[in-house]
């Protein structure tokens, strides 16, 4: 979470208008769902990885970290698609070749889709996405909620980390049972603090004239048409080649 956020704020493409990133990534995400995955999936995965690492300058390691969790999930889940089970007479299961293809296709498709999201989260600060959704007409209440949660996550993460360090310093984690005890204490403490934090933040915001609306100025980013067109052209080319390759294959 912290690492993702760090790169979102510091990559080379940070100051691009969010549309320039969201539109191509969004289109590619849709393409992963509609095109035959075995031909288009690797293309999309590769180009998103390329854009993230060589374009925006996010280290490969960070990208792999983001992809690792969904990938592990897929690797564990996919084999079940490759097995066919029948209850016709008793319980039978067998590997099916159709199932193998399905498992492979699903994995590739999901990885390609996740790479689009990874690109977006690693290159675009949440504030940009929030500003964009506001302009697209997402209700203000929802946006304010996301905004507050985003801020508070870090306030609490910081406290959780320092709390755990303090417990560790007092040997709170020397044994497994003490560890459980310590985690329980920490969680209870954090919850209490969350309630207090909310109360005090209300005071702090009221002092600045809060009357029920969290309105702030958004940094204006200039939309670059050349960059946007480049992105869209690239999406078009990928879509076309994915489609042609897919037809040739079948």
């Amino acid at each position, binding site marked *: 979470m912290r690492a993702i*956020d760090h790169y979102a704020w510091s990559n080379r493409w940070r100051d691009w208008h969010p549309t320039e990133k969201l539109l191509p990534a969004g289109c590619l995400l849709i393409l992963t769902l509609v095109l035959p995955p075995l031909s288009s999936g690797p293309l999309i995965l590769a180009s998103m990885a390329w854009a993230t690492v060589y374009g925006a300058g996010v280290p490969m390691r960070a990208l792999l970290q983001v992809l690792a969790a969904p990938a592990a999930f897929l690797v564990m889940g996919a084999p079940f698609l490759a097995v066919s089970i029948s209850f016709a007479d008793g319980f039978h299961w067998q590997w099916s070749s159709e199932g193998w293809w399905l498992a492979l296709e699903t994995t590739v498709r999901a990885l390609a889709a996740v790479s689009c999201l990874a690109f977006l989260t690693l290159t675009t600060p949440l504030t940009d996405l929030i500003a964009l959704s506001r302009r697209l007409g997402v209700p203000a209440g929802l946006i304010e909620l996301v905004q507050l949660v985003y801020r508070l996550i870090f*306030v609490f993460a910081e406290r959780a980390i320092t709390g755990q360090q303090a417990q560790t310093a007092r040997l709170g984690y020397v044994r497994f049972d003490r560890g459980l005890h310590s985690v329980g204490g920490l969680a209870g403490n954090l919850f209490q603090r969350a309630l207090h934090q909310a109360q005090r933040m209300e005071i702090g915001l009221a002092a600045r004239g809060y009357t029920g609306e969290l309105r*702030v100025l958004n940094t204006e980013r200039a939309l670059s048409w050349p960059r946007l067109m480049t992105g869209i052209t690239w999406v078009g080319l990928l879509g076309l080649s994915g489609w042609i390759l897919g037809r040739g294959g079948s």
Partner: protein
Amino acid sequence: MSGPLLSLQRLEYRYPDQLLALRGLDLAIERGRKLALLGSNGSGKTTLLLHLNGTLRPTNGMVLLDGQPGRYDRQGLNQWRRRVGLVLQEPDDQLFAATVEQDVSFGPLNLGLSEAEARFRVHEALEALRITSLASRATHTLSFGQKKRVAIAGVLAMRPELLVLDEPTAGLDSHGVTHLLGALQGLHQAGTTLVFFDARYGIGL
């Protein structure tokens, strides 16, 4: 418009759990003054401060604004808080937006200013605290001292007549303290009345 900007008369405050935090307090804050209130931990500084913009309502006694009893209805509080800016002890209690610029713009927009005017106020406040370089930084990546200055800028951008700060120098290094006191000095010379609370003696203004 003579007489104190804000005054407290025989102020008493009892927390809901019956703890008597303030008793028989009289204080007059004259226009254009610079006032430091010192007290040890738990002496009631924060409790007193929260009375100065109507956040807490005294159990007994009165808070007077320009000689008039403070009004605790919604509109009265709104007016009150336009004039009296409060900077809390803990910057994380005040900063809610993702970037510095966004956060500082919150107060000015609440005043009903236009976006252009708000942008100007943000710039002005960041300048006064010498943190223009932080403008587009993410709030959660700032150090404690930086957060503290951003929190002050957020209140400053509303150009309050009276600026009240709860332990503004706590947690700052000596360089940070010098900077901050310099900035406050500048505000005071520009006509802002200042009240600040501190737990340590010898903080000179």
